[in-house]
């Protein structure tokens, strides 16, 4: 069974979720490693957190049959499990290995994105081997080696459990994998056999039963992954019997032990068959199963019989599923999404709830509509167990299936007492789950008819699933469309409420209604804008890993501090700053921070520190990257710049800021041996370009010897602008309010004209050059007389200037639109916005407006 187009959506979701998970794992690892470095105790919650993330990913991948990912995750999980159980001493090496595993997974995800499968993308055997070796190392010295979960073996193609609908595609199973599976299987069976024999000798003990059970269970799991359904079924029967023996439901006797030994022999035969290139088919497995089933204790037959019994053909399955509703309780969003999708695809109606409480609410309203309950056991708030007992007491005929990674036998026993219909272990095979659900539904219906407790039909189905969703992923273009439409709505609103036809009319009621409409549209606009905002923490957390890697590579201990990760910025901005941050932080670590020896020499702590902070200031977001390294070396920058011809030889007039900005020049970074320079350079021109693309700028505060601070100013959002609407002739401009210092109408006495025609205005004590917007943009203004128009004082990086316009209309806050791509970039204009009356105004880009000057004039201005 291969994943077709229908599943690409699921895969996509999986990739996105997994990326998020990896992003979350990285910082946690760094935290652990830091703890280890400092010798402090590692927070067990952190380990659990990492474990959970791997586990979730494994589960999701299992659903999607991405077995390569499952295998890597599984090994990682096993290793972590050992760590968190205290079975292994925490070593830094483990986590480096696990980080490497994360990278492998991330590469696999890329492959999945492009190819839709995780097979044949890259060789995972290397990382798997390292992981397994590490695990083996931990296990070896201890005699309890078998009590640790044995790694489930690896990639398999997928096949229906029932086995008769799809043929096993053997080409997909590499011989190595089969060999490994067989080897492991034989070991497991041998060990179980040994214990069985010791029982038959009368040395029965709780522990050996446990061991047998575990081995059979692991083997069953392996078979499941490899899709050897016959062996799986057989092992399942064995497992059930042992379970019965353990609970005292089945008397242990020679007969049972012999049957089990026979079965184990059969299984071994199957394994040998596999090794010889066969298909692992068993002779006469059905009769064995029959025998075994007859030995099975009653109570368990009910609970466990479910998975394998009576394979239903696909058509029947579909028909029977009909419109059955599954109430699914799961706190983990990824699993919830995946299972919901799978169920829906297979004709079930799925009502997903996050907590048991909300599920009970749903049941209260819709109990007649719910056919089966599928629930996790570990739930926040009310636990799965409490939930189930609540359900069984209130809705007697409701079949309940648990879906959990928890294999605690006591818990399972308790659950069985609660008449739970069946259990599914995470990660569960899709078909196994569907089959289980189907059987449970039939069972529930039978029971319902028997007890004849038909409840009154529930009212409507509309409220279903309304409570569950906390966040959704939306295509950005859809969001932009929404924002466009909201903008249109605001325009339409003002077109209606300020319609000329209404003029002169006394319409009190209308005014009130219009006011209400205005409030709503405004709120709508605010919300539409807020939707685009996301916190920077995602990008920031990635840097932890970066610094960790870099500091290892260059052998400088460096710690990255994060501050203000909650600051929210427009999604587009966040995406755009990710790369520049990588460059800048890498540079800070590589060139800024001195070697440990140097640091100690100058009396600094051995460990370097980089601070990455974000804060919101007015309509700007500041991103600060500060290191406590050696700072920029002005002399060397000047030297290098001269050598590269960036500045003249005798250019002594540069300010500190100007000198620092030189490192962003393209020519600077390409210079040879940049790394020998105490300053930074690599890729900084790219950084600047990216930042400028989001209309940001970089400020450098250099403190030689003590460190260097980069402050990136970026607008909060690219979507809106607050500006002053001005007019030149018939053209309207929006000037960003952040650049405007003041505006005034000059008196004749303030104006001075230089012989070359350049005008200056004396404002208080300073002389500011005047530039006429109509000359810059070749427009026809209403008047040419400075004293009849308005001067707007703009704060530019190079100092303030005056811009001459006809008049100021009013202040606006609007959505920024790009000037069509067809027009290319226009000097002095960064975009446009639509005014209340539907007209288009141009948004002035103050920093680039002077580029419109003819070049000769520019010289004049500079001189």
């Amino acid at each position, binding site marked *: 069974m291969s994943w077709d187009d229908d599943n690409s959506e699921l895969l996509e979701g999986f990739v996105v979720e997994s990326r998020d998970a990896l992003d979350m794992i990285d910082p946690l690892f760094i935290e652990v490693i830091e703890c280890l470095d400092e010798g402090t105790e590692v927070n067990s919650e952190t380990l659990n957190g990492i474990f959970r993330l791997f586990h979730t990913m494994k589960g999701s991948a299992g659903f999607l049959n991405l077995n390569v990912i499952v295998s890597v995750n599984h090994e990682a999980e096993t290793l972590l499990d050992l760590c968190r159980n205290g079975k292994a001493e925490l070593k830094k090496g483990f986590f480096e290995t696990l980080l490497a595993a994360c990278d492998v997974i991330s590469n696999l995800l890329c492959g999945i994105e492009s190819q839709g499968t995780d097979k044949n993308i890259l060789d995972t055997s290397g990382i798997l081997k390292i992981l397994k070796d590490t695990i083996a190392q931990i296990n070896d010295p201890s005699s309890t080696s078998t009590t640790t979960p044995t790694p489930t073996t690896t990639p398999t193609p997928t096949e229906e459990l029932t086995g008769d609908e799809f043929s096993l595609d053997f080409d997909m199973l590499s011989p190595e994998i089969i060999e490994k599976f067989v080897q492991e299987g034989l070991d497991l069976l041998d060990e179980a056999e040994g214990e069985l024999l010791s029982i038959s000798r009368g040395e029965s003990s709780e522990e050996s039963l446990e061991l047998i059970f575990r081995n059979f269970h692991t083997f069953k799991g392996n078979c499941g992954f490899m899709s050897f359904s016959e062996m799986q079924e057989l092992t399942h029967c064995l497992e059930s019997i042992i379970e019965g023996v353990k609970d005292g439901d089945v008397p242990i006797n020679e007969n049972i032990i012999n049957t089990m030994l026979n079965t184990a022999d059969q299984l071994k035969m199957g394994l040998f068959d596999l090794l010889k290139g066969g298909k692992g088919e068993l002779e006469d497995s059905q009769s064995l199963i029959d025998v075994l089933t007859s030995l099975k204790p009653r109570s368990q037959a009910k609970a466990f019989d479910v998975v394998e019994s009576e394979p239903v053909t696909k058509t029947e399955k579909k028909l029977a599923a009909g419109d059955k509703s599954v109430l699914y309780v799961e706190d983990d969003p990824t699993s919830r999404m995946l299972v919901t999708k799978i169920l829906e695809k297979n004709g079930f109606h799925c009502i997903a709830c996050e907590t048991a409480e909300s599920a009970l609410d749903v049941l209260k309203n819709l109990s007649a509509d719910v056919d089966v309950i599928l629930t996790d056991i570990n739930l926040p708030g009310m636990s799965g167990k409490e939930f189930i007992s609540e359900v069984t007491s209130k809705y007697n005929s409701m079949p309940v299936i648990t879906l959990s990674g928890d294999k605690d036998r006591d818990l399972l026993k308790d659950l069985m007492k609660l008449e739970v219909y069946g259990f599914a272990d995470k990660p569960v095979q899709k078909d196994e789950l569907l089959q289980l659900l189907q059987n449970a539904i039939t069972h529930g219906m039978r029971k319902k008819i028997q007890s004849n407790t038909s409840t009154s039909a529930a009212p409507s189905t509309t409220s279903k699933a309304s409570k569950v969703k906390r966040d959704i992923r939306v295509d950005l273009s859809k969001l932009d469309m929404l924002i*466009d*439409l909201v*903008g*249109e709505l605001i*325009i339409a609103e003002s077109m209606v409420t300020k319609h000329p036809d209404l003029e002169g009319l006394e319409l009190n009621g209308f005014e009130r209604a219009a006011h209400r409409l205005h409030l709503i549209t405004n709120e709508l606009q605010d919300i539409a804008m807020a939707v685009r905002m996301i916190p920077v923490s995602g990008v920031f957390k990635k840097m932890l890993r970066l610094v960790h890697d870099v500091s290892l590579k260059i052998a400088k201990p460096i710690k990255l501090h994060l501050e203000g990760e909650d600051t929210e910025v427009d999604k587009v901005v966040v995406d755009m700053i990710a790369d520049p941050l990588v460059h800048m932080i890498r540079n800070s670590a590589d060139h800024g921070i001195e070697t440990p020896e140097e640091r100690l020499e100058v009396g600094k702590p051995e460990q370097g520190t980089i601070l990455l902070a974000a804060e919101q200031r007015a309509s700007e977001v500041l991103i600060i990257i500060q290191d406590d390294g050696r700072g920029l070396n002005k002399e060397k920058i000047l030297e290098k710049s001269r050598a590269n011809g960036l500045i003249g030889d005798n250019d002594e007039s540069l300010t500190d800021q100007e000198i620092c900005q030189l490192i962003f020049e393209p020519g600077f970074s390409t210079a040879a041996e940049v790394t020998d320079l105490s300053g930074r350079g690599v890729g900084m021109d790219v950084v600047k370009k990216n930042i400028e693309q989001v209309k940001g700028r970089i400020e450098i505060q250099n403190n030689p010897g003590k460190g260097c601070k980069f402050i990136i100013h970026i607008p909060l959002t690219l979507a809106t602008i607050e500006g002053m609407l001005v007019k030149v002739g*018939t*053209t*309207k401009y929006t000037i960003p309010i952040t650049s405007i210092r003041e505006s005034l109408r000059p008196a004749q006495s303030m104006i001075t004209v230089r012989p070359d025609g350049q005008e200056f205005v004396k404002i208080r004590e300073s002389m500011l050059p005047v530039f006429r917007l109509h000359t*810059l*943009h*070749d*427009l026809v203004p209403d008047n040419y007389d400075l004293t009849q128009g308005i001067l707007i004082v703009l704060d530019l990086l190079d100092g303030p200037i005056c811009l001459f316009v006809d008049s100021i209309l009013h202040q606006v806050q609007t959505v920024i*639109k*790009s*000037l*069509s*791509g*067809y*027009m*290319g970039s*226009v*000097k*002095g*204009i960064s975009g*446009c916005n*639509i005014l209340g009356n*539907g*007209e*288009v*105004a*141009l948004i002035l880009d103050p920093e680039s407006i002077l*580029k*419109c000057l003819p070049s000769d004039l520019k010289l004049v201005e500079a001189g």
Partner: protein
Amino acid sequence: MSSESELAMEEDQDTQKDKYLTFHIGSEEYAIEIKYVTEIIGMLKVTEVPQTPVYIKGVINLRGKVIPVMDIRLRFGMESREYDERTCVIVVHINENTVGLVVDTVSEVLDIPHSSIEASGQLSNSTDNNFISGMGKVEDRIKMVVDVDALLFRDREQIEAMTAQEE
């Protein structure tokens, strides 16, 4: 994509085949392939954008979307003409670009079979001829088929190079 929707698309393209929207500039009639046309609107208020070629009249607000408009007369190197109530903007979409074309009047949608279109020979090198890909004969009249791609994109590199030089 399911085969159904593919079929639908094919059908769609079939129905658009050989169909042309014709418009007048002065006394001449021009035709433009219907597949490029998204809509026809009356003249809206144009906001001039500085530093653009003269035939780009500026931008208009098309239901919240800002699109540039090109005056075909100016693009063809003809005299411009006062806009009146018959002046139309044909909105075309090509290569991810949406552009409005200002024409004197829009007349009709016509079938011009491929066979009756004569490739415009290298008759002359004057600018307006550059944007004509063929001459369609419908009954006794001649419709000049406009090469939309050339109309929108030819010379653009040149222009960009020029503006770059000015810097």
